[in-house]
């Protein structure tokens, strides 16, 4: 067998696995190191720059003022409002999503399994802005929700719901209820898929064993399936939390006025040119998500991803 130059090259790398490994890794590492990690560091760095309120200029003088500003009442309100919505959205996604995930994992087979799988995946991948746009049509006065409420005699109920504090408002599209609904819709598939993966991973014979030992179906569900499926719920909630904390489109389109972390960052960076404060604000979701990821890791939630 004649030896070609490629043989020598391939043997060279085969014998030096480490060199080969780093050769492969260099381009992706360079990209992520320079573009992504580099820009994140630059962002954190700029959060300590000084913004002059009078001249509207940013100067590279070191200050903690932007972080101190986060503790102001108005800014704390923004954080509380956003985190509150993130919690409500996460709970909504769990309640609506769990039956779907559970049914998908335990009771579907063949074509229904495929139908559910594609049925959950499609809305997840369908354009985010298009979904948000569709909801502004659905919730508007004269839209489909009001039409159904009028024709089913539930208009009274809808109007009563909208008079409630916190969730109410002048109409569905300016109420927190409407905003919550859009958020839940938008992030629901991100919750269903990890929950489904976790439930599917629970071996069927554990449930059979539980039944053999005399547990009723509800007892088996509660004491065997739920604890084992919980990491999936946590994994899903990473997405619902992270996505709600950073979103700045849905709060603009649906719901009452009042800034969210995302809209505040966008406002400070965009119209006001106060990048340092915007950068300090991004530290809030980063901190929350980091703690969350750390806790989720300890729970073993990453296995459900």
């Amino acid at each position, binding site marked *: 067998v004649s030896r070609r130059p490629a043989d020598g090259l391939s043997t060279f790398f085969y014998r030096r696995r480490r060199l080969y490994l780093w050769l492969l890794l260099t381009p992706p590492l360079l990209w*992520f190191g320079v573009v992504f990690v580099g820009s994140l560091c630059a962002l954190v760095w700029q959060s300590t720059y000084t913004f002059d309120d009078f001249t509207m200029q940013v100067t590279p003088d070191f200050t903690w003022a932007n972080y101190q500003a986060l503790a102001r009442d108005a800014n704390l309100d923004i954080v509380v409002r956003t985190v509150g919505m993130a919690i409500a959205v996460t709970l909504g996604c769990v309640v609506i999503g769990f039956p779907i995930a559970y049914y998908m994992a335990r009771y579907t087979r063949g074509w229904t399994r495929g139908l559910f799988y594609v049925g959950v995946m499609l809305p997840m*991948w369908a354009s985010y802005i298009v979904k948000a746009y569709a909801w*502004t049509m659905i919730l508007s006065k004269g839209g489909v929700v009001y039409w159904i409420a009028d024709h089913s005699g539930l208009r009274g109920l809808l109007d009563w719901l909208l008079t409630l504090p916190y969730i109410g408002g002048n109409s569905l599209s300016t109420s927190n209820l409407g905003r919550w609904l859009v958020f839940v819709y938008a992030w629901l598939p991100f919750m269903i898929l990890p929950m489904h993966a976790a439930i599917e991973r629970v071996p069927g014979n554990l449930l059979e064993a539980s039944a053999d030992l005399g547990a009723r179906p509800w007892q088996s569900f509660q004491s065997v399936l739920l604890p084992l499926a919980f990491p999936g719920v946590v994994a899903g909630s990473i997405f619902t939390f992270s996505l709600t904390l950073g979103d700045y489109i849905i709060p603009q389109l649906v719901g009452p006025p009042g800034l969210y972390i995302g809209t505040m960052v966008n406002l400070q960076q965009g119209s006001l040119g106060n990048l340092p404060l915007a950068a300090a604000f991004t530290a809030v979701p980063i901190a929350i998500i980091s703690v969350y990821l750390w806790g989720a890791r300890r729970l073993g939630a990453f296995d459900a991803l």
Partner: protein
Amino acid sequence: MPSDPGRRPGRRRDDGPRAPWPLRIAAWGGLVFLHVPIVLLAIYAFNTEQSAFSFPPRGFTLKWFAQAAARDDVVAAIVLSLKVAAVATLCALLLGTLAALAMARRTFLGKDVITLTFILPIALPGIITGIALHSVFELGDVTPGFWTIAIGHTTFCVVVVYNNVVARLRRIPPGMIEAAMDLGANGLTAFRTVILPQLATALLAGGILAFGLSFDELIVTTFTAGHDKTLPIWLLNQLGRPRNVPVTNVVALVVMTLTVLPIIGAWWLTRGTEDTRGAIR
């Protein structure tokens, strides 16, 4: 490959009890809920009525499609989005595959950190990636435009390619490569004739997912785009303009179709191999 008893297909399917009816209603109801807005949007695109979102629709027409196709700004936005998605997908395919080849079977110090870095662009809120890139481009005096959008998109597209390719590589028995080499193939030949054919559908699926992800990304794009308008940005700008509602509806439907059809294709390609689940994020 470690076997996972819970994943064995066929188990529990034989004699499982039927789902209780409240569960069935909740599950199917949830599935319907996920699709109502999409179906309504599709219906509205054919609505004859010009101005409002009123329900039910008044009549059927195709004229808005013609109007949308005649709009230069719509066509320009579609072309820009397609170009960005193509470039971002190619870069993500290259970077994601290289990383996957290096990391599929090896453990080394810092591997977890590297994996986390790949996931972060989609785990962190998009606004953070967006504003971080924006601030760096501003610091470096880079004019935002096509390339800055593509750089941002590549960053969060790498992970879907990486996930797909890693999942596939882990299923190729290492013995196959050794067998090829025992039979006289060098490393390159073994890669070309043994690994690459098995990677093909994973690459295609990863590429399609990356394309879909890039094509309708909005949050990062608004910070890196400058004056250029991708299709999602065009849509966002339309939301406050009641006069253009019919054209907006049509464009929304087109965007939806253009992202959803390839995704079904990607699912089809990897169905049964269980890695679409990992690939989704």
